[in-house]
């Protein structure tokens, strides 16, 4: 420990005011560049649609990581002579500080780097983590931000990655399956209802018709539950899409004389 202290003292003894100003300028430029990328790129991506939007959003954290790495490579030789002893001393001290004082923070930072490599979620993905569902708005150094359908921002530390289940609806693509449910009273022609609901999906202007449209049915104690599965034009249309399917489906089923099931209180309980 004493050796490390002497090493650090020796490493930083050669720092001059000029070197400090130079390093500060480099760091300042890097911070400004990251700030601009984080502000401008999502804005530009918002004007684009489809895959271009997703690619542009996903480039933000990668660009930030690249800028940080380049900044470290540039700043360290400005401040200290990059000899083996100096590097051991600096990184040893840094390791101790992180290990004791900023353990959780470092945990999130490392998970953030893993996130960029494994990509369990990217900006533009619709994910559910610990009961919170929303679109990944940004991936920061320590945490990701998602925006829920009710416009609430939820901050999720990257360290959650180690021990939580993460459900990703579109996984980097612009294909996100949506499900509209219909609960009908029993005693009706099941095949006819399935055909009607399939037509409902194809009639919706939100439907991405080149993707599969599927109707599945399950027998419940109160009647039949139909699940109409289809893909919206874009993931961000999902709630309007489900609403449109539900409204159109209800209209078609009612016109055909089909009754919706009202669940008995006992069943809910």
């Amino acid at each position, binding site marked *: 420990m004493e050796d490390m202290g002497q090493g650090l003292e020796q490493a930083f003894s050669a720092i001059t005011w000029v070197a400090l100003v130079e390093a500060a300028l480099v760091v300042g430029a890097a911070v400004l560049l990251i700030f601009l990328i984080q502000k401008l790129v999502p804005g*530009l991506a918002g004007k684009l649609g489809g895959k271009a939007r997703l690619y542009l959003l996903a480039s933000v954290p990668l660009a930030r990581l690249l800028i940080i790495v380049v900044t470290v490579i540039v700043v360290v030789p400005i401040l200290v002579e990059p000899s083996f002893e100096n590097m051991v001393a600096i990184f040893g001290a840094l390791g101790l500080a992180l290990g004791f004082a900023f353990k959780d923070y470092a945990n999130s930072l490392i998970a953030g780097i893993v996130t960029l490599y494994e990509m369990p979620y990217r900006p533009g993905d619709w994910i559910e983590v610990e009961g919170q569902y929303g679109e990944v708005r940004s991936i920061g150094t320590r945490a990701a931000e998602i925006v829920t359908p009710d416009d609430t921002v939820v901050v999720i530390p990257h360290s959650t990655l180690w021990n939580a289940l993460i459900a990703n609806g579109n996984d980097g693509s612009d294909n996100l399956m949506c499900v509209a449910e219909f609960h009908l009273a029993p005693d009706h022609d099941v095949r006819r209802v399935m055909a009607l609901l399939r037509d409902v999906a194809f*009639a919706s*202007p939100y439907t991405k018709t080149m993707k599969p449209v599927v109707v599945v049915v399950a027998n419940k104690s109160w009647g039949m539950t139909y699940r109409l599965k289809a893909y919206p034009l874009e993931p961000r249309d999902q709630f309007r899409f489900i609403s449109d399917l539900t409204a159109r489906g209800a209209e078609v089923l009612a016109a055909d004389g089909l009754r919706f099931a009202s669940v008995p209180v006992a069943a809910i309980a």
Partner: protein
Amino acid sequence: MKEENTPESSPSLPGGLIPVDQWKLPEMSVQRTLKDAIRHLTAQLRAGISPEEEPFQSLDNLPSLTDKQIQHIAPHPDFTSLAQAVLESLDELRQSETLRREVAMVVAPPFSGLREALVRLPGLRGGSDAAESWHLIAPPDNLLMNREEARRWWDEQDLTGPWVIPELADFWLRHSSGFSLISELLRRIAAGQVGPGLVGCSSWCWQFWESYLPDAHLSPLTLAPLDGDRLGQWLEFLATSRDERAVTARMTDDGLYVLPVENPSDAEKRKHSGFLRDLATASRGIPGVALAIWQRSLRARPEDDMEEDPGNQKQGTRGRNCWVVPLDQLSLPAMPQSSDRSIGFILHALLLHDGLEAERITLVTGVGEPELELALSRLSRADVVGLGEASGRWHVTPLGYPTVRRHLQSWGYPVDAF
């Protein structure tokens, strides 16, 4: 571009009919690809920055041709000849056994002229099937019906002899009660329950029905795309179709020749421009789109006497000269930007149905009447859509089609394969 099984084609239908899976987009230069991508990207990013729509405007000072001059140099094709050429091409495909079905399905992108040609089939004389005239099947006024009603309607139609449906898109609406007519017809065709017939179908409509009925393998045919060479021959054919006077067209920027495609035998070797290849790419090889852009790119020089000279006794032998503006200098219609989905819904519906009346747009898109009127007004001012005076139907314009297709694709809509 030379496809396998391509029969000897008529000048009205360069390349003839080909199976759909042989269709290829005309080749594009790397420079043109990059320019188009950058132009499309900047158009999208400009959303909200420039609120005014940009209808067509010329970026040069040369005078445009008058309508009369355009009617001589770049007239609309003779659709009766096209109908004849389609029938001849079908005969050749039948003889070569490329087409074995009783009912031929011809799928074509918008502005290919297929609907206009097939409408003229019943009046056609002198064809190989002259003994039996074609019977035109027109759609019912009410397209919303259930399966039983659709069955009864088709039972009332005479589908025994040679029958023709010029545009299948007229027989449906994207509504949960609007699918029955086409479903029933395609079922009957697949089951061989109808006599010999010919069905024309918009590529957008076909794209939808391929998804709706994935097992309907009807081996559709399509019109061969116009690459640069075919486009040049076709434009030359159109120019000489009225009075046999050849057209010489040169670029305004470098003087390179566009037309005629071949060097005259008595002239020295001419350098030709790459304009036709760029035009073929910009129009996606679609004749109507290429012709619309071609008409807009033609210019006269002030000193040129392009009008007919009644006193000129040699006019039959004299050619016409005109100038062509490079595509980069043409400002084609730009897409008005909007944050909601209405504009995309409307444009997609117009292409799926090959044009629609305003009430039916509301029915298939769910866009309310006031909102629809505002959107149509914006799109109309931008030259992206137009209202057919006779039909009362809104449709995408040929000049606006390339940008509409590109925007719909980037907004996530299913687009046609052409």
